[in-house]
């Protein structure tokens, strides 16, 4: 099993947090707190109906795995101090790299009236659009978990938020970088060449120990929610460099030093949500800009039922050049629909297609969720693609359309 690689700064952070706690104010008696345990265990079956693409790749159609995410929380001083510990582990029968563990969260939060401070491993999300998370950059993607990019590795951080009448300002110091995870050579959903993550190279002479910095200001004015952010540090997306290792053609990830400025906007008017994310980034050759912008319109109580149908459309543009990390959506249109039954089981289906306007590449994704009982939830995901180009990093997964079945027990 792969172990999560943490760097010394992360451990130092944890130590600082612990020391701060020990030296905390006397009236905040840590012994008089409340402990809470929750979490889930999920069994998963991925079904790959297509043939394998590479010699040596697993031939199995059925690929099972099991994952656990326990959550331990200790809170005291009326909730103004909190320790959170959320480890994660998966055992996957066919993907050695997907059999991995991580610490998703391990931090201390101190919440005051108009500010809060988080120190430790944490998770932060930025963004408004549905088809692409363009601005979101604090956490590294745990790409072996799912190709949708929504699973994240715990990021060492000190996060300070200042809440004012003119919005909230978040300041981040991010010591220690987490490398992206990649599927094993013998597993499905791998790159078009084997990826040698252990040989990763960096722009920064500090390698993965570069201390990244970020700031974000977010505010709501009437129907408009917006945020402006800047990130300075190691790109979460690697470029891949072709190399030969042990007589084999491989990819070596390379992480550039970048500066990214991001914008998030959402206008909420009645049943219409107008959304936009935009960013400009320097550090991968020429500076470039990218945007994801669109709308969501909801039809309520369709056909005299309790169900709502949301219609989504977004345009995706990315102006990056060949020296930047490859991206699947550079001039694409996303259309989708979200059906929410509003039943006691919270049944929800989200279906969408991303269509490349030039290459005619199409990626269809369907996600459905249904609560089976107070403790069990069932989920189905389908990913299907067509006209995937024969070259480039993503060509490696062109035969890897799949259906994923998940049964999750919450406790």
């Amino acid at each position, binding site marked *: 099993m792969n172990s999560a690689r943490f760097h010394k700064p992360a451990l130092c952070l944890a130590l600082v947090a612990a020391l701060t706690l020990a030296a905390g104010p006397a009236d905040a008696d840590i012994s008089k707190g409340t402990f809470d345990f929750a979490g889930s265990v999920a069994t998963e079956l991925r079904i790959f109906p297509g043939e394998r693409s590479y010699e040596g790749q697993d031939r199995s159609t059925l690929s099972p795995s099991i994952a656990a995410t326990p959550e331990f929380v200790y809170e005291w001083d009326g909730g103004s101090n909190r320790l959170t510990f959320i480890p994660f582990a998966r055992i996957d029968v066919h993907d050695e790299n997907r059999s991995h563990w991580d610490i998703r969260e391990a931090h201390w939060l101190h919440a005051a009236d108009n500010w809060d401070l988080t120190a430790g491993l944490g*998770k*932060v999300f930025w963004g408004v659009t549905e088809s692409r998370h363009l601005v979101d950059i604090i956490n590294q993607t745990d790409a072996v978990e799912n190709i949708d990019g929504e699973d994240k590795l715990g990021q060492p951080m000190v996060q300070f938020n200042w809440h004012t009448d003119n919005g909230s300002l978040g300041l981040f110091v991010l010591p220690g970088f987490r490398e992206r995870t990649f599927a094993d050579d013998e597993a499905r959903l791998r790159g078009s060449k084997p990826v040698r993550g252990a040989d990763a190279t960096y722009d920064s002479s500090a390698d993965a120990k570069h201390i990244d910095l970020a700031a974000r200001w977010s505010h709501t004015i009437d129907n408009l929610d917006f945020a402006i952010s800047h990130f300075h540090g190691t790109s979460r997306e690697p470029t891949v460099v072709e190399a030969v290792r042990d007589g084999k053609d491989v990819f070596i990830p390379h992480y550039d030093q970048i500066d990214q400025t991001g914008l998030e906007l959402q206008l909420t008017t009645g049943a219409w949500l107008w959304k936009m994310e935009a960013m400009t980034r320097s550090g991968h050759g020429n500076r470039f800009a990218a945007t994801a912008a669109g709308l969501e319109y*909801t039809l309520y109580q369709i056909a005299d039922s309790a169900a709502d149908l949301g219609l989504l459309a977004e345009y995706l543009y990315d102006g990056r050049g060949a020296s930047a990390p490859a991206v699947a959506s550079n001039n694409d249109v996303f259309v989708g629909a979200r059906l929410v039954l509003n039943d006691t089981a919270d049944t929800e289906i989200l279906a969408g297609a991303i269509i490349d306007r030039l290459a005619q590449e199409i990626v269809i994704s369907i996600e459905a969720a249904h609560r089976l009982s107070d403790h069990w939830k069932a989920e189905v995901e389908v990913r299907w693609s067509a006209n995937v180009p024969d070259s480039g990093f993503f060509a490696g997964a062109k035969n890897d359309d799949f259906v994923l079945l998940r049964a999750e027990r919450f406790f």
Partner: protein
Amino acid sequence: MIPTQNLNLLPRNKRLAQAAALGLVLALGVGLSAAQAETPAEKGLAIAKEMDRRDLGFQDSRTTLTMTLTNRHGESSTRKLRTTTLEVSDTSVGDKSLTVFNHPRDIKGTAFLSFTKILDPDDQWLYLPAIKRVKRISSANKSGPFVGSEFAYEDLVSFEVGKYTYKWLKNEACGDLKCFVVERTPKYENSGYTKQIVWVDQAEYRVQKVDFYDRKESLLKTLVQSKYKQYLGKYWRPLLMKIENLQTGKATTLQFSEFEFRIGLKEGDFTSSKLKRIR
């Protein structure tokens, strides 16, 4: 997974309420003959304003509740949530509320923030803890079910006098109490109701029962509020609310724990950016 609103069916709108108080004093001063001269619309409005006046000044409150959903076969499921409410001093808008789910476990930590308006759509945000995402959501869906229950969003938002027009129908006994029976018609857009018939007890102006009529003007649901308890010597809260859908046979009950009042909440505690630190 969708969220709640205010879980507070009681009134507040200060300017109107003060006017109402004055009106009531005048009415009492002039005597019964003057009161009898009121039209049914005036009398209905006066009752609503008095309900509102009696709930002024509670400042903030906190409670936890268990929601039990039952279908026509008697199968049930539960939700557990806690909710805090802030009385907003600006009379042109309604209250602010924050609701956090604890059960079922797959939605544990999901938080819902709502700023109630009088006639405009409310402002609503949802926090999804698994992905740490705060989403501003559309509030046009007034009549949709709240987390699969028989309560619609509009049934759970704070009562504001300006949301309805009123007509007093009659006085009649309601259990051991004497009630005003008032018809109210939603003025806001996207309501699922053509009218509501409300039974309000004459002693303390508490809602005892509501009949909801759907868009086809047939009786859809009946809400009964009971186990009223008085706090701070003034504010009444029902500790049990039961709503039955007469067309589907489904029912939902809300059982409240004790309410806490004046716990020192501020407007700054009800912001979308602070949702991220809620649990």
